[in-house]
């Protein structure tokens, strides 16, 4: 029987090799073409043939001596014959040299596919053909552990960035409300030191800068309001903003934060808000005059901060939006109206409302007044306030802040890291935290304190959650000298996570004449690190690498949906898909997450009978979870150097996993007839990127890192997702 069969079998010595079979036919030729068309044959049947610009080979006679038990023979086509324009190949077989009884094979599509070589220095071209069946080979990538797990990730209702952007848009309103409140409450804390001509000039400069910022933001906000996009609720009262009142916070901030800490805060409004809140908690109703302190002062050497006050003002402006959600959440508009133009009353109303809440009340508040869709951010703020309050009341040694004295950290060194100068401590040695006590004018006091305590607290800067606490009891401390007794041992620091920013709070506490606890404190933002520390993921290297080999990359192929519909002659389904890529630092392999669907509409619900065309619209959510160990395996698969255990440890305890929080959205539409089934597959494309780390070079006697060397490695990251829809063949 005559036959025409063609199958691609690889590339060899400048030729593409196919297997051909002509059955009993003795002659054949092959055709290379650009297009494929259907020709009607008889009344019903059609055949596919090549058309358009095509190249037809000479007529060849089959070499029968090569035939063994089968009529299959290799067909070698020179490489130069298959150009970019050639897309198809087809085999014709004939019974004789006069083209009698022609038979045509299926058309094979020829695709020049980029294939990465092992060095990633370039690509080689090879051919792929169509109509192939996908083999399953589970023997590859066995070193990656694969799990199936529940879909445990979600995006917050409104991203934090959008949340803060929305609040910044309302800044003029906020400033009108909040600045007089805070200024009125805290302005009286603005102590001496303003008589100096230079400082007065500096203060005037700051004021002018703030006025400029306010005017610029006010103009921007008016434009936004005119365009009708401003949606935040505005309070009815209006205040005449006095920029000077903003500076009322400055002495408080400088009293509780080191200059390095203020710089580390930068424009992180949430962090600065928490710092301001700490200041309010410590000073509200607790200010202690120096007159009440049993200390006789005498002038000694002066320690003068060279930190520019101008750095405080922009950060302060950035922090104020954090008050807006609290005002909106905690108070109803009627109460705000009743408070009227009394800033201190309003501030106290807010404070009373928030600080008295327990966790359930906070949740209830969020539930009944969703308002801005940022419950999680607000929850953090509110919980931070209540946690901190409870800590001060129950677990932590409480004391009244001595306004006239300062605690000054000594020998603080910063290292430029993550775009800021930061204070880093090594975990490899004991950490010393020396400090001095001075007056606001920088003078030392000649005084011995018989019994005192150093309290060291390390907290999460945004939630105020306590991660470390230590008290050191001291006897007969001469505060005219530096106090060197504060320290954290190597064993103690082991329990504190690495590569995460924390707020270090050092308090020096003693008894007043009346027997009450009084003291001073300073906050510092610090990181604990070991030998290497994660910096960032940088530029990409080369093209994306599709994990499209269903054999090699089998574990990365994810069937997220399979199904079909019966009882209707035809069906159509539309999925709004969200596919999540995440990274787990707890797992060591990869995991395919379950698929969840939520039906939006289904026309079967509109009638009692099955419709002729069933239409279903659903949301579909699924995802894939990676781990750093799995990424190491991927690097190995891509012939890249793997990351060693130290690097993996540093990455695991860093915020690098945030770079692996990714999502792809796509609307997939599929249709079929009754009995047809369809599937939805996903597979990723990875890309290699530069991984920037730092290695500790030099540490000082205090345990501070004073020099780090940048290091560069390569890491693999997911870059894109392929959504593939398939349907059963009829």
């Amino acid at each position: 029987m005559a036959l025409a069969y063609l199958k691609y079998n690889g590339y060899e010595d400048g030729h593409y090799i196919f297997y051909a079979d002509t059955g009993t036919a003795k002659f054949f030729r092959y055709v290379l073409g650009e297009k494929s068309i259907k020709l009607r044959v008889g009344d019903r049947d059609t055949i596919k043939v090549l058309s358009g610009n095509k190249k037809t080979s000479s007529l060849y006679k089959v070499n029968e001596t090569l035939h063994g038990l089968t009529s299959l023979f290799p067909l070698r086509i020179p490489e130069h014959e298959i150009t970019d324009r050639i897309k198809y190949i087809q085999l014709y077989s004939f019974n004789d040299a006069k083209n009698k009884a022609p038979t045509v094979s299926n058309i094979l599509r020829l695709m020049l596919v980029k294939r990465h070589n092992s060095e990633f220095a370039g690509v080689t071209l090879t051919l792929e053909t169509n109509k192939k069946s996908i083999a399953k080979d589970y023997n590859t990538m066995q070193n990656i552990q694969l799990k199936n797990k529940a879909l445990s990730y979600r995006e917050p209702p409104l991203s934090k960035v959008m949340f803060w952007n929305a609040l910044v848009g309302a800044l003029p309103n906020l400033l009108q409300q909040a600045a007089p409140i805070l200024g009125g409450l805290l302005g009286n804390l603005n102590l001496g030191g303003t008589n100096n001509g230079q400082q007065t000039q500096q203060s005037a400069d700051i004021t002018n800068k703030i006025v400029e910022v306010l005017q610029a933001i006010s103009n921007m906000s008016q434009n936004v309001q005119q365009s009708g996009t401003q949606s935040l609720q505005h309070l009815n009262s209006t205040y005449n903003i006095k920029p000077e009142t903003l500076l009322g916070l400055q002495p408080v901030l400088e009293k509780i934060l080191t200059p390095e800490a203020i710089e580390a805060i930068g424009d992180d409004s949430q962090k600065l808000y928490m710092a301001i809140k700490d200041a309010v908690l410590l000073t509200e109703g607790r200010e202690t005059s120096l007159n009440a302190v049993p200390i006789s002062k005498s002038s000694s050497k002066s320690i003068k901060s060279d930190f520019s006050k101008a750095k405080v003002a922009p950060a302060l402006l950035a922090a104020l939006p954090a008050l807006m959600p609290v005002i909106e959440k905690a108070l109803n508009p009627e109460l705000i109206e009743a408070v009227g133009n009394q800033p201190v009353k309003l501030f106290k109303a807010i404070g009373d409302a928030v600080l008295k809440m327990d966790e359930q009340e906070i949740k209830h508040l969020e539930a009944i007044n969703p308002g801005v869709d940022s419950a999680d951010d607000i929850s953090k703020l509110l919980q931070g306030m209540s946690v901190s309050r409870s800590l001060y009341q129950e677990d932590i040694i409480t004391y009244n802040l001595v306004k006239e004295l300062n605690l000054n950290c000594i020998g603080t060194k910063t290292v430029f890291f993550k775009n800021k100068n930061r204070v880093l401590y090594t975990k490899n040695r004991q950490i010393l935290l020396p400090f001095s006590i001075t007056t606001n004018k920088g003078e030392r006091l000649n005084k011995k304190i018989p019994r005192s305590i150093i309290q060291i607290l390390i907290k999460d800067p945004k939630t105020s959650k306590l991660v470390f606490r230590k008290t050191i009891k001291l006897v007969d401390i001469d505060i005219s000298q530096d106090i060197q007794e504060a320290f954290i041992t190597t064993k103690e620091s082991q329990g504190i996570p690495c590569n995460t920013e924390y707020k270090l709070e050092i308090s020096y506490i003693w008894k007043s004449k009346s027997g009450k606890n009084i003291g001073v404190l300073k906050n510092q933002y610090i990181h604990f690190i070991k030998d290497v520390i994660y910096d960032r993921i940088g530029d990409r290297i080369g093209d994306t690498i599709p994990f499209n080999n269903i054999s090699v990359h089998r574990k990365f192929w994810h069937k997220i949906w399979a199904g079909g519909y019966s009882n209707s002659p035809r069906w159509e389904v539309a999925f709004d898909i969200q596919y999540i890529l995440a990274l787990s630092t707890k797992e060591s392999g990869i995991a395919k997450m379950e698929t969840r669907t939520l039906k939006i509409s289904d026309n079967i619900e509109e009638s009692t009978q099955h419709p002729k065309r069933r239409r279903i619209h659903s949301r579909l959510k699924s995802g894939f979870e990676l781990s750093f160990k799995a990424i190491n395996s991927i690097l190995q698969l891509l012939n890249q150097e793997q990351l060693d255990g130290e690097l993996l440890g540093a990455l695991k305890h860093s915020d690098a996993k945030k770079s692996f929080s990714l999502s792809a959205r796509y609307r997939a539409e599929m249709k079929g007839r009754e009995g047809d089934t369809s599937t939805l597959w996903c597979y990723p494309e990875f890309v290699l990127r530069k991984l920037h780390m730092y290695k500790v070079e030099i540490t000082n006697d205090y345990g501070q890192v004073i020099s780090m060397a940048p290091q560069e490695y390569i890491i693999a990251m997911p870059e894109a997702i392929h959504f593939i829809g398939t349907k059963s063949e009829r």
Partner: protein
Amino acid sequence: MENKIPDLSKMASTTLEMDPILIDGQKILFDKKVTLMPVTLEEKENGYE
């Protein structure tokens, strides 16, 4: 047997219809490549919302 799926994301669905590529015995209808975008994710302990 071939195991590698070419990038079909730029190919018209009609072309795929005419010259089907099979996965698990089913023919591919479409291949859409979507770039992953950074998002903020939070993990729920119990795995369910």
